[in-house]
């Protein structure tokens, strides 16, 4: 799945999740599968709010983690693609990204 920089994402509303220390635990209700995000993944996860684009999220990541915007964008789009493939995030505008 290709995550366009201007795509807007929201967390799948059916999920249970909790941030514990720097990591985030997410439970998919339908498959009863547990997913874990490390600290950078958790940072991006927290910022996903149904309004920010992938580029916005990448900019925040670059600001807070001392990486270049290019690296941040690549990491963010890869993460979003992975989250989307696991149905942990969904397109906020109903469109595929």
């Amino acid at each position, binding site marked *: 799945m290709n995550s366009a920089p201007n795509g807007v994402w929201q967390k799948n509303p059916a999920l*249970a999740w909790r941030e514990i220390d720097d990591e985030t635990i997410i439970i998919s209700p339908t498959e009863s599968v547990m997913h874990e995000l490390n600290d950078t993944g958790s940072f991006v996860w927290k910022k996903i709010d149904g309004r920010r684009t992938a580029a916005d999220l990448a900019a925040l990541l670059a600001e807070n983690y001392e990486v270049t915007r290019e690296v941040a964008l690549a990491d963010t789009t890869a993460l979003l693609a992975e989250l989307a493939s696991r149905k942990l995030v969904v397109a906020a505008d109903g469109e595929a990204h």
Partner: protein
Amino acid sequence: MDRLIARTVRQNVPLSVHFDLTYRCNERCVHCYLDHEDHGELLTSECLEILEQLASSGALFLTLSGGEIFLRKDLEEILACARRLHFDVSLKTNALLLTHARAEKLARLGVRRVQVSVYSSDPAVHDAVTKVPGSLARTLAAIPFLLEQGINVKLACPLMKENLLAYRGVMALAEGLGVAYVLDMTITPMMDGSQGPILHRVGAEALLPVLQDAALQGCHPPAKKEEDLPALLGSATSSGMESDAYDDLPCSAGHNSCYISPYGDVYACVQLPIPAGNLRRRRFDEIWRGSSALKQVRAMRESELPVCSRCDIRKYCERCPGLAWMEGGDLLGAYERACELAEQKARLAGVARPQSAWHAQCAANETKNSSAKGRVYDSMEMTNEGTRHD
């Protein structure tokens, strides 16, 4: 999951919380350990505030139970709050009040799993346990409503004198429905300590057919080691977080799981009712971090138990510190039920003449007392002889 458990134990994050919303119930199960009178349940606003505090403290797995939770008129509101706070929600219910519409709402509100109590596939046996005629039919009728909504269902069957022979029927029911089940041999005293429910407990020897049942072997998930008990025999009240990550700890209670009563009392576990604090007077975080009762529970180590740590058949024992406290009077001590069951299981595993360390100690004490009595008698005889005047 092991990594998460290890981390939350290390940091004492209350990952899993069992929250009983009411002790009121529309059944009167003979083995139940609860007082069904309402002594002033938490208000809706109090429940919602507690959920906020639990979420802030890191709780993720929330089990809502009772009594019968559907007797709470505000259940939907509580579930909506749990959904907003992103809890993973499981419910325990007898399902008597579960309708198609209610099951739809549960799914919409994100309930992932529902545990339903079923005591037998025979209505006469089940209804004799619940004391509600027609209860089995109503319970079974409700289960498809949950399955249609994609909600995971698990049947829980505590084993007692009244239904011991019926467990195969419950297994068949579960298999026919395509759902999981757990058979639980634990019948506990009342939470106030009175022993009434224990009358319904099956003796260790009478449990042998269950322990030996080949149908409970080779189960899913498969047991990790050959000498493990069948995994389908478990606890209906468990936090569900069994793991090797607990290492030298007896269980999760007080480390990364706890229990909350309908009156706001916090305990390490529903089976360990030593009050740690009350949420009407203190915030959850204060109680969880500062309670001396919880600190006492957290200090327990399997390797430091005075008697049990040196027991040769310890690996066959499912000692519960709560039951040790309720039945043996000592959080760190042994208790008869655990020793009986461990000896049965050890015998089944091929151990010759298994004896728990506690039983061995009791036997040694008896012998010592008998010898002491004999010596007293002898010395009395000697005294009598010495005082006899011819």
